[in-house]
């Protein structure tokens, strides 16, 4: 039977949405509180790793498959580049801010920084999940 005991599985399924939400909180509040794209993405990826450890990799792959992760990583990278190109199109320079700055300390502030962090968060999440999938899929069932 795949996975660990019923206790671990129940707690993992209870904690998964909250860990996901906390990662999203770290990503979105990257310009106000400590955190940002990378730690938030790692936390979201760790919530998937929690499902892998508790249920086994087949069940986790129904949530986020290998192809999903590959596509998501590309989407994150492309989003960053397009956000950078906005500045170039308006004649300033690459990655320059073109959005209004807003009031200091509000959630909608700092121009394109939160959007860039969102892209980085998606990319890091998909990247870490891909690393885990690749390392777990290779040499399955031939341990000594």
């Amino acid at each position, binding site marked *: 039977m795949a996975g660990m005991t019923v206790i671990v599985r129940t707690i993992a399924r209870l904690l998964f949405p909250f860990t996901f939400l906390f990662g999203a909180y770290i990503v979105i509040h990257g310009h106000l509180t400590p955190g940002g794209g990378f730690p938030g993405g790692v936390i979201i990826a760790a919530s998937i790793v929690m499902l892998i450890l508790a249920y086994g990799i087949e069940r986790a792959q129904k949530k986020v498959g290998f192809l999903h992760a590959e596509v998501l990583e590309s989407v994150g990278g492309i989003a960053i580049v397009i956000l950078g190109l906005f500045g170039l199109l308006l004649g300033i320079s690459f990655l320059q801010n073109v959005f209004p700055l807003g009031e*200091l300390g509000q959630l909608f502030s700092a121009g394109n920084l939160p959007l860039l962090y969102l892209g980085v968060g998606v990319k890091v999440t998909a990247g870490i999940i891909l690393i885990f999938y690749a390392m777990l899929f290779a040499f399955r069932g031939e341990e000594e």
Partner: protein
Amino acid sequence: MDFNYIIAMLLVALGIYCLLLKRNLIKMVIGLAVLTDGIHLFLISLGYRLGGTAAIVSGEMFSDLPGFAAHAVDPVPQALVLTSIVINICILALALSLAIYAYRHYGTLDPSKIRRLKE
């Protein structure tokens, strides 16, 4: 007393010791992790200001930006270390993958034996 710098450099020396003298690829990766930890500690200590606060505007600092600038620690090394941690984790994953690959191919984790088998 520059205790932080000394400990950071001792960590770096410990990492180099592990990289040079240990005969196991995964143990060498652990040494690499220790080495980068030392470097991060050194860089962050370099930007510290006595009695400083974090480089984040919060609380009552919003109305006192000059006071914030006079008390906060240096943000530039922190950004540098942030980049460095990401690259560190990439290197870690890649090195561990290569170690697994080498073990499957040569049947050993000893770098000197791997070299001997190739000849």
